[in-house]
């Protein structure tokens, strides 16, 4: 143990105040059950337990740049096993949202995919799977988009042939205007410090 860092409670405060479900990490007793339960644990920079410990110590950059916070599959295994009943998933989502809103895109694909997903809901009220994939593939520009689409094209055709793709684009729901104003209001008044 060589590095000498200080404990800085200010980041923990920032998380408690600004991150959705951020205050829940107070209850963590560092048992590591979440880490042991996570299907993608091997691929994470730090398991959830350590993320929580780093928040307490004040390691802001390391936490917000950790790939872990954007790698949650939302399988709820950690959450049902957590002896302290911490909604680990909500915390991870909250942290991911917070990091993305600060422009940190450690898992860029996931962030872009999620953002496209949300924007489509905001636009029409529903999700059109084929439109979503198209937007996701082309989010990085036309060249990468074509490349990515080609990789997935075969699957797209297969799905289309099996009638598992809508041919017509998704129509807006009737109440889309009021839905949007609801969502605007929620985004303004809710936690997370983000913008649409």
């Amino acid at each position, binding site marked *: 143990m060589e590095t000498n860092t200080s404990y800085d409670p200010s980041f923990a405060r920032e998380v408690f105040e600004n991150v959705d479900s951020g205050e829940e990490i107070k209850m963590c007793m560092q048992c590591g059950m979440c880490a042991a339960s996570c299907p993608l644990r091997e691929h994470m920079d730090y398991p959830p337990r350590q993320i929580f410990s780093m928040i307490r110590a004040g390691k802001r950059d390391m936490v917000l740049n950790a790939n872990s916070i954007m790698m949650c599959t939302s399988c709820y295994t950690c959450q049902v096993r957590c002896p302290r009943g911490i909604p680990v998933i909500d915390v991870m989502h909250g942290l991911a949202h917070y990091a993305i809103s600060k422009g940190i895109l450690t898992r860029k694909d996931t962030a872009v995919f999620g953002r496209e997903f949300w924007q489509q809901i905001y636009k029409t009220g529903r999700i059109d*799977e084929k439109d979503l994939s198209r937007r996701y593939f082309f989010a990085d520009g036309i060249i990468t988009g074509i490349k990515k689409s080609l990789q997935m094209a075969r699957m797209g055709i297969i799905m289309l042939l099996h009638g598992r793709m809508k041919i017509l684009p998704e129509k807006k729901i009737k109440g889309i205007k009021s839905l949007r104003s609801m969502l605007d209001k929620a985004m303004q008044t809710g936690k997370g410090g983000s913008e649409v």
Partner: protein
Amino acid sequence: MKYFLYWGCSLEASGVNYLRSLKPVCEALGMEFEEIPDWNCCGASVSYAGANDLAIKVLNARNLALAEKKANYDIIAPCSSCYIQMIKVNHEIQENESLRERVNSILAEDGLAYNGSIRVRHIQDVLFNDIGTEQIKRHVTKPLNGLKVAGYVGCQSVRPYGEYDSVHNPVVQDKLLEALDAKPVPFPKKIQCCGSGIFLPEMDLCLGLVRDILDDAVSHGAEIISTVCPMCAMNLEMYQDRINEKYGTDFDIPIVYLTQLMAVAFGMDLKRDAALHHNVIPPENILKAAIGN
């Protein structure tokens, strides 16, 4: 019995065989469905990238409010992601008064309010608890004759609340399969995640998860895998080629919805009712062999 059926976006596209088979099966069992008028997407499990928690809660609260306004039926959400999003928000609003007020102040934009009177159910819950395996057995005219099925439960259809089944060792799907005279195989990975909503952007990592699940099912003798979630179905079915390519495996196992198996066992039309033609890995031969057609 009347229910709202909140089928969600996926069941109109990639999960179309789920919805097509679910409707005739449930109707045969005496269930009637209403649609929630002008429903919106639940936000699924990836919206957090663009939205905060409150916005996602509002999405679901709107659906609940629309349902409550129309009738006091339970909502059946066959898609696990819709189910978890909706039941979670429902619980939170029911249990937290200040949240309810906050959400209602936003729903008021469209003159809506939600009082927390609706119950959100998974289709497995309704089939097992409201209908019951005895009733289901009575509708079985073409028993599956011991077809070895891996009942893949996945994550969000039982976790985190475990309202109708154990979150650690779920049994309901297996019991429903037994009612069809199928033989559910023991299958430890039946609750391991397939990658869910982040499968597409994290495909490299998630292919490994699906490989493990398929391998577990096959090595326990499964001839077919059943599921109750459009994401599970998609991730398990569509990527077998890629997995084979990447890991040198030779998976070619059909993935069907539980309701498709029910339609088959109920002696319904394999195309119109069981919607088997939508499946990319064709299950027809295995199922026909099982029912002796």
